[in-house]
């Protein structure tokens, strides 16, 4: 990198806010998706909006691509550096700026850790609802970029539901305030567009969050079934009975074994484990938990436990949240997949995944957010066995194709990033992607913000978009334009 540019960066952030040594840069060459690695030219650690703005202005002037990074826990390569570019880490911007309990709002800097938000307001009976499994380390800025989910978004919604306003540094270095503490600010809902844009529209430097009052009681029911098919039937019946649990999670036998080996969550050993969490007023929850119990028994549950104390609940959730990492105990290598299907397609998809796994000689452990059809198949393989890694990748991709064919999505919460950008053209038709790219051009005409991510191909802003072409799925008669 041009030493004069580096000098400019150093003048903005000081020595301690600029990383250029090869050793230190290595920490930033990938995020939670470790099979993609790119060395950045430099890493910047600004400590204020003004510093972010100054850095981005330099990038804009000199045409240097930049990638914003929170804690680097993302699973789709969203924070993977781009070649000849810099990484802008928000790690030093980690202050909680405002806590407004009467209005249930907080204003935080992007580097604040997800769990810290809840910890700050827990003594007052509030919590921050989006709870990705990585919540003890992931940052709010990263959550905003990825529109992070978590187990409890079934009832409470995703990050986007809980972000009311943003201060952002746009890719040309200007600052804009989107949304705000009050609802429905006049104009387009650019907050809604920015959340989940995976760092391609700018860098959020202040985030206004909505916090939620903790419910009067929370009960977590664990039901053991012979198979995930039976457990899936129970999920459908619970929804069919008109209930909206706070969370409904499912694990298959392999995932249970892994979680048990890792954290001894005291799960029953069974073919399909269903975890249903109900929250609300005590009388309401007590009435509903009996209904859930009855439905589970009717669907074939052979063991049911209810965790009532905080400690019991914590253990149940620890097992679930550790599931990805725990799989490392039963397989040397694995791919974490993230796909979504309409809930009703679950039995069909489970059978199909099992069949494909058997055919390829590859084990697949399954962990799902069953209530909203978000699957996390963990494709297990051993890199030392020739051909297995490739076979695992093929299987993982095939699962996503099955999700698309079922009318679902290639990602429910991990994002597209680097990993799935080529899948975007299988899920969306060309005009759909063109339209999104036009929005990108409005924010970032020079395509400097995380430029190689999300879309299969770059688009020059100012290009005349092509004419409508039918979607590949429409042509195949699989799906109507949805």
């Amino acid at each position, binding site marked *: 990198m041009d030493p004069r540019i580096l000098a400019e960066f150093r003048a903005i952030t000081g020595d301690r806010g600029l990383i250029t040594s090869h050793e230190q840069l290595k920490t930033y060459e990938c995020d939670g998706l470790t099979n993609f690695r790119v060395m950045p030219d430099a890493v910047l650690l600004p400590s204020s909006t003004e510093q972010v703005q100054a850095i981005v202005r330099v990038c804009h002037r000199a045409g240097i691509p930049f990638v914003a990074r929170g804690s680097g826990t993302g699973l789709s390569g969203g924070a993977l550096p781009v070649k000849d570019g810099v990484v802008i880490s928000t790690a030093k911007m980690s202050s909680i700026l405002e806590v407004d309990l009467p209005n249930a709002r907080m204003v935080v800097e992007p580097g604040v850790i997800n769990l810290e938000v809840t910890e700050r307001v827990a003594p007052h009976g509030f919590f921050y609802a989006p709870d990705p499994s990585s919540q003890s380390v992931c940052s709010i800025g990263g959550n905003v970029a990825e529109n992070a989910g978590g187990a409890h978004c079934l009832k409470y919604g995703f990050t986007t539901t809980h972000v009311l306003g943003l201060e952002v540094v746009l890719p040309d270095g200007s600052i804009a305030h989107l949304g705000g503490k009050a609802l429905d600010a006049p*104009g387009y809902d650019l907050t809604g567009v920015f959340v989940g844009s995976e760092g391609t529209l700018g860098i959020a430097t202040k985030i206004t969050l909505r916090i939620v009052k903790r419910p009067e009681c929370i009960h977590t029911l664990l039901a053991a079934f012979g198979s995930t098919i039976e457990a899936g039937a129970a999920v459908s019946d619970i929804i069919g009975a008109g209930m909206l649990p706070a969370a409904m999670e499912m694990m298959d036998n392999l995932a249970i074994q892994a979680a048990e080996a890792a954290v001894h969550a005291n799960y029953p050993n069974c073919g399909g484990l269903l975890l249903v969490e109900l929250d609300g007023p005590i009388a309401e929850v007590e009435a509903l938990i009996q209904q859930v119990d009855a439905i589970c028994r009717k669907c074939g549950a052979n063991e049911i436990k209810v965790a009532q104390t905080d400690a019991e609940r914590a253990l149940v959730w620890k097992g679930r949240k550790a599931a990805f990492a725990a799989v490392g105990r039963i397989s040397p290598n694995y791919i974490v997949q993230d796909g979504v299907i309409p809930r009703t397609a679950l039995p069909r998809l489970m059978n199909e995944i099992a069949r494909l796994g058997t055919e390829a000689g590859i084990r697949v452990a399954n962990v799902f957010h069953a209530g909203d059809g978000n699957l996390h198949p963990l494709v297990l393989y051993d890199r030392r066995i020739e051909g297995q890694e490739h076979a695992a990748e093929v299987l993982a991709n095939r699962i996503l194709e099955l999700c698309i064919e079922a009318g679902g999505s290639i990602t429910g919460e991990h994002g597209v990033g680097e990993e799935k950008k080529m899948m975007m053209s299988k899920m969306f038709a060309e005009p759909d992607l063109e339209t999104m790219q036009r929005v990108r051009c409005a924010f970032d005409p020079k395509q400097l913000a995380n430029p190689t991510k999300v879309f299969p191909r770059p688009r020059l802003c100012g290009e005349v978009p092509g004419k409508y072409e039918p979607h590949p799925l429409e042509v195949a008669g699989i799906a109507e334009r949805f």
Partner: protein
Amino acid sequence: MTPPLSATGTGTGTASAWDELRTIGSEAQWRDAGPEDTVAGIQPRMVFEPQNEAELAAALRCADSAGLAVTPRGSGSKDAWGNPPTRADLILSTARLNRIIEHAWADLTVSVEAGCTFATLQNALAQHGQRIAVDPLWPEHATVGGILSTNDSGTLRIRYGGLRDLIIGVTIALPDGTLASSGGKVVKNVAGYDLPKLITGALGTLGVITRAVFRLHPLPHNIRTFTLAERDWANANQLVLAVQGSKLAHTGLQVRLKSGEQPKVDIRFDGTEAGLAAQSEVLRKLALPATETESNAEVWHARQRLFGPSAQSDRAFAIVKCSVLPGSIAATCDQLRDLSEPLNVSWEAVVQGTGLGYIRFEASQPLPIHQALQAMRARLEPGGSVVVLHRSPGIPEIDAWGDAGDAFPLMLKVKEQLDPKKTLNPGRFVGGI
């Protein structure tokens, strides 16, 4: 057949452009626009009712290339919202795009065309015990596309969020004829940009919504509504905050205010009988010394009633949507009183616990209302907002939206990307977009 030359379109469209347009669809789908089709005083030339998305997109593209201005329309129930358009030539009506495409009840989603009325949709969903958890104005007339474009949410928002939180997929027609979908039909989906949110509340200035997909909620089994009369609005605001800060799981919370009357707080619960009994008890203790009475569901139509005719037909009135923080409801009422009393303007308001409120101003003369609206906006901006939804004739023009702040240049760029020729609803949105 060319339209009669007497038609008074504002655009520059030549006869041949109209000829080309009218090759789209059948004769029965086209008609001359009449006085009933005026858009805030502007007389368009023709109305087209496409049968399908392809016809809609084709007409839009054709109008765009001929430089004609297009106003998308559902039922027209909120046609006067926003600023008057600078031009209006063609009305694209979604009246025939009214199918419910798929109610995937077991997946709690529905795909529906933009022209379907809300009541028709909800009735169909109710057959499986479900609903879209939003209660918009005039559901018998209002269409899905119009409700989305005006971001019209009601009393359920406090529990279920607004339309932006319930829409999961959208298909829009752009002025260049592109039909683009984003989102999908699953609740959880982070692939690509969230354009359903961008289009919600955009007043048809970025594209024409042709269909949308929503997540659904189960219909409640039992519902109870309580009303509490409070001594003044400070107490009413305290009760709102106390309910919000409690562990109650209410699905509605609003304050009804009228100058010179005691404010009333309405609260709604749903759930099991056991749960309802317990929650009522908690409310009773929370609200002391005020006592609650059970109300019927009518109270939740208070917002819609604000839009009704005046008791005395010669009085001028205006209706605004305002947004403040929930903790500022009482302070806002103080400001309302302070600014309206000297002007002899009376007011009536329905404010949700979310801080979103609707205020009706009335006076014997139109001018004081105009002054009240200006004063109100000056006091609430920035941080809050005042959007003027309705002015009775005679009240001087006032920008409907107010200030979009430093995000405005970006909004303009989004508009330029999607509708570079300003074909869609020109001039009606924020900052003259």
